[in-house]
């Protein structure tokens, strides 16, 4: 009998009593809030939340009694301060259904912390927030992200930037950010990323690290009039790490590169001849 076998058995059996939608919500809650399933279920189950994910997250973050801290953090983040910070960028009540920071709010945020909206570090910030869509930070996402970054004010966030940039230098982190950016930038209902958006994102992420970025963008805009698939997106990063010069040194035509990259190689080699 599994149930008799220890504590983790209890948690799983709790999960087993939930339906698929609820399980998904538990997982997402736990991810955004960095807590465990037990906490997630407890919050989501409660009467005033009633399995509403956003509501549950908001309640969790704004619960007055809690001061959150992350394992080994230098300082606790104050919920009330965060609330004030949030309010400064929150979209006006009559423009949206939910409590969010919208695109103009984000622009203002960027300006206030002194970054260009096309600075890749904003993607790191978004990733920390686990933001689902570009141009929107929900309240829960904002709270979770700031918590992760151990900031509750704008000046703190500004100070955090160099550390985030350093993170980007780590290839593992950069890969995460890169792959995250695909889902972040695309419409939830679509599978692939529209060409223009993809080009914008490629530019933000790769312009400074890949000598062939400009060629790649030119190629995409001239020759490829279709959206960019996820596979092509992720493989472009790999490609940019291996092939950095116009002679396409290191490229193996018999390799498993997506055909768009094969065509890119052909295009550049032809152009240079």
């Amino acid at each position, binding site marked *: 009998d599994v149930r008799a076998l220890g504590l983790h058995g209890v948690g799983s059996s709790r999960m087993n009593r939930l339906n698929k939608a609820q399980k998904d919500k538990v997982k997402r809650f736990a991810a955004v809030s960095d807590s465990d399933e037990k906490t997630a279920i407890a919050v989501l189950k409660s009467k005033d939340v009633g399995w509403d994910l956003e509501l549950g997250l908001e309640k969790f973050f704004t619960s007055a009694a809690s001061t959150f801290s992350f394992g080994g953090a230098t300082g606790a983040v104050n919920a009330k301060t965060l609330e004030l910070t949030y309010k400064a960028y929150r979209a006006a009540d009559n423009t949206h259904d939910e409590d969010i920071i919208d695109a103009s709010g984000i622009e203002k945020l960027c300006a206030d912390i002194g970054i260009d909206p096309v600075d890749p570090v904003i993607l790191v910030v978004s990733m920390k927030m686990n933001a689902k869509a570009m141009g929107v930070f929900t309240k829960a996402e904002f709270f979770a992200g700031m918590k992760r970054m151990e900031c509750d004010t704008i000046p703190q966030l500004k100070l955090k930037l160099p550390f985030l940039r350093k993170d980007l230098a780590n290839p593992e982190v950069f890969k995460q950010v890169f792959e995250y950016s695909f889902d972040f930038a695309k419409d939830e209902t679509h599978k692939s990323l529209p060409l223009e958006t993809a080009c914008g994102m490629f530019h933000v992420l790769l312009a400074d690290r890949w000598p062939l970025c400009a060629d790649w963008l030119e190629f995409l805009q001239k020759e490829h009039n279709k959206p960019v*698939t*996820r596979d092509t997106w*992720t*493989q472009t990063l*790999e490609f940019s790490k291996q092939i950095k010069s116009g002679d396409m040194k290191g490229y193996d035509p018999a*390799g*498993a590169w*997506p*055909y768009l990259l*094969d065509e890119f190689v052909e295009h550049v080699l032809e152009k240079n001849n």
Partner: protein
Amino acid sequence: NTSTVGTSSRPEGASGAGADRSTSSSSVESVRSLWDMGLALFRASLAEDTAGSRGTDGNDGAAPHSATNDVLGKATRGLLALVERERGGEAVDRAKVKRLTRAFRSLGVYSDRFEAPFLDATRAFYRAEGMTFAGRSGESVGEYLAHCQLRLAEEQRRCDDYLESGTRRALVQSVEKELVDRHVGWIVDNGFDAMMEKSDVAGLRRMHALLRRVDGGLDKLRVAFGSAVRARGVAVVKDEENDRDMVTKLLELKRRADEVAEESFGGDEAFNAVVKESFESFVNQRQNRPAELIAKHIDGKLRGAGKGETEDELEHSLDRAMALFRHIQGKDVFEAFYKKDLAKRLLLSKSASNDAEKSMISRLKAECGSQFTTKLEGMFKDVDISRDVMRSFRSDSERFAKVEAAGVELYVNVLTAGYWPTYPTVEVSLPPEMDALQGLFRDHYLGKHGGRRLVWQNSLGHCVLRAEFPKCGVKELAVSLFQAVVCLLFNGNSGSDGSLTFEEIRAATGIEDKELRRTLQSLACGKVRVLVKEPKGRDVEDGDSFSVNEQFNERLYRVKVNSIQLKETKEENAATNERVFQDRQYQIDAAIVRIMKTRKTLSHQLLIAELLAQVKFPARPTDLKKRIESLIDREYLERDRANAQVYNYLA
């Protein structure tokens, strides 16, 4: 000089000397026979240098051959000069020369003192001759080859006439080497193509015979043959302007190539193989079109295009067309077109010979497997069964009486969907009389075959309308169903106010816009005009109005109004090609899933290799890649996180 030596030697051995020889040889062996001794003494004296020093018995190490001044040396030089003069065309006393060479032989000095310098001189002579003629631009290779053969024949005769038979081999080889071997490149590169062009079978035979004698000669010839066939073939296949002549030209090329291989190259298997390889390589240089054109060619034959041909000739034609088809790698394109064309032939009764149709099926079975031909055979069966169905319909007296009462003859072909090509269903509002007739048939048929579903293929229907025109009286118009439906609208509408606009016709017939425009165009803007269009013009525009052509005046009683226009055929062909293409994509997808399901995880290279082995039509790795990516996007597969060159199956 020669005359002084010539007369005195008697190598045959006169009887007297023979007696002496035998007497001596029966005694001690170390003692030479008298004859031999005599020869030895004679030889020694000849070998004396006229200046006094010893000759070629090797002792003083002097240069052994014609450089010496002994009698033998002089004799040799003289002989060689004679040979050279003879080669130059002069007549020479051959008997005398023969006696001399025989003498050399008896003296045992033939090989050293004569043959060796003779061969040297021969080589020098022919080297010079070769250089003079071969390699010169403007020089005819054919003439050169003929010359070589003459020289070879000449030298052989020379050998027979006054040289020793042992010399023959080396002599012939020398000539071959100097005249042919040294110039193989020139011979083949300059002569071959022109001879191929002119179908100079004799010249090529000569080339083959000569090149056969030298090492690597035939290889070079084979390569040139292959290139020549391939070059011509590629030119034909890639000539897009002249697609309609492609098959005829290729058949002609095959005939010529086979003829050359047979007549000039002696039916050598290696050369036949070269023809096959060349055809295989160039016919596949262009995707799809050659297969389509071969199908069209065969369709023409089966419709009776070769009217002057006998049955046997027709069968030969088909054999040759199939031989060409055999080289094609993308056979599915051919199949799609063959099926489409067969359907048309069967439904419009256009087959010229049922035997030929059946023999084609056997050929296709042998070539493509029974999987393809069972569908075709099904089509034939359907046509036969339809005849029976019609018979039973006619004997269905209750229903058929109504058909007869309508005064319309009805014939229905019932097609089993899986066997026939897929046809687009085009909507049309039939006039009530036609609708009623269809209904009667349907009731009869479904009465007999309850579980089946009948779908009318209006795009395939054709009619014969009886029409009365003011100028030419009663005519029969052979038209398509759509054309008929449009025409019937004008019943009771004659005279200039009986016109109908495009929109009115569209509403009344329910025919889809593009199809309707095409139909009206075929009735009002083609060669035979049943209707007239206002305003005049090639294309049917919105607002155009149509009326019966009062001026219609055709000579024949039954007038065919063509509904198949060139553009339509192009569209049809493009659609067929598209369908084959789609089909191939499905096949690739299915193969990928099948392979990955079994292997679970596989590297890119291995997957591509497996696919190329499994897939029955030519597929490029790029196309395969695209399908793999599509399946990744649809989450059937994923790239391995650790190694992007490896794919994992996603259950």
